[in-house]
């Protein structure tokens, strides 16, 4: 279990702790105001503030000896910021971090969240100008989004029931999208998204700059060589560059150091040869988030 599970999981995974979905929790952390400001200023948060001064070439800044590392760790501290409980800065995305989840866990999350509203993905809208209603907003976010017209889908703001939402996430996974669950702000849980590189803002800053806006999942993909037929169905699924096909061995190579534990490869495998194993069961990977 990751650090968030210890702090906010009450013995379970943090995203399976029903307390983190309650209206009381939302009110305690000021989720309504926070999330409204964050979504209202989404592009500005991304473009101007995430990297302190601007996002113009943050990679250049991070490369500066010593100072670059200091800037990097300072920015990193924002995503996991827990205090003050109320009044964290939405313009810095303080306390707004997420984690990759498998389809199975995503379905459990949807049983805990209420209401569930489908909204336009803010990331795809700003980076590609595409209106893609693939993000599932919960509770406080579902209450606030209807005030922000550009995120409201043509189909309206009718909440989804649990079964519908689960079927929807399953469809998203079939399309190769990674399920991610989001604090807004920590420990309140505000959304379940279906992310894709390169549009997803958090996945992008994690993969390009190793900023901890998105944690790796609680699981790691493990290949059972006795079942693998070498069909390569899994090899096109990975968004994190963790799978390549190894021709000389006749089976894929899954780099578990790079695996984010989304489970897309396991689902794609017709033989059931890829298992999602608990990250904690692999000694060297239990500290790798």
């Amino acid at each position, binding site marked *: 279990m990751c650090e968030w599970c210890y702090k906010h999981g009450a013995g379970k995974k943090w995203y399976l702790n029903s307390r983190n979905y309650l209206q009381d929790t939302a009110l305690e952390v000021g989720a309504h105001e926070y999330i409204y400001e964050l979504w209202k200023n989404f592009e500005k948060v991304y473009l101007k503030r995430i990297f302190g001064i601007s996002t113009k*070439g943050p990679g250049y800044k991070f490369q500066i000896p010593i100072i670059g590392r200091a800037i990097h760790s300072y920015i990193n501290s924002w995503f996991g910021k827990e205090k003050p409980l109320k009044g964290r800065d939405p313009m810095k995305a303080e306390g707004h971090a997420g984690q990759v989840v498998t389809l199975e866990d995503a379905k459990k999350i949807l049983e805990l969240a209420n209401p569930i509203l489908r909204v336009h993905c803010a990331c795809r809208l700003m980076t590609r100008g595409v209106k893609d209603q693939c993000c599932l907003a919960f509770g406080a976010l579902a209450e606030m989004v209807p005030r922000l017209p550009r995120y409201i889908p043509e189909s309206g703001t009718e909440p989804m029931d649990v079964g519908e939402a689960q079927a929807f996430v399953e469809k998203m996974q079939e399309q190769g999208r990674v399920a991610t669950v989001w604090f807004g702000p920590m420990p309140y849980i505000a959304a379940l998204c279906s992310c894709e590189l390169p549009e997803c803002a958090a996945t992008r800053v994690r993969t390009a700059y190793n900023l901890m806006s998105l944690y790796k999942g609680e699981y790691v993909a493990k290949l059972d060589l006795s079942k693998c037929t070498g069909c390569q169905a899994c090899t096109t699924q990975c968004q994190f560059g963790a799978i390549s096909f190894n021709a000389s061995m006749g089976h894929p190579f899954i780099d578990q150091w790079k695996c984010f534990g989304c489970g897309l490869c396991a689902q794609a495998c017709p033989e059931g040869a890829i298992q999602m194993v608990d990250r904690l069961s692999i000694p060297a990977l239990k500290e790798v988030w």
Partner: protein
Amino acid sequence: MKTDILVDWEKCGDPRECKRCLQVCPQALFIMYSPQWDSDDPDVWRVDVAFTDLCVRCGDCVEVCPDDAITIR
């Protein structure tokens, strides 16, 4: 080599209608936004570039822009 991408907002029209640069960029570095929240004024909407250090300088955005508003430096 440091890359800087300049977008001339005077020349750029309504990115919500055009969005060619947003969609053509192989690295998806363009961002469209309105500094005034939910303004419907096309002049207010603009594109800007994040993460210029990830730009591969392919020049596709310069080529695709109908208003010649993009310069790579």
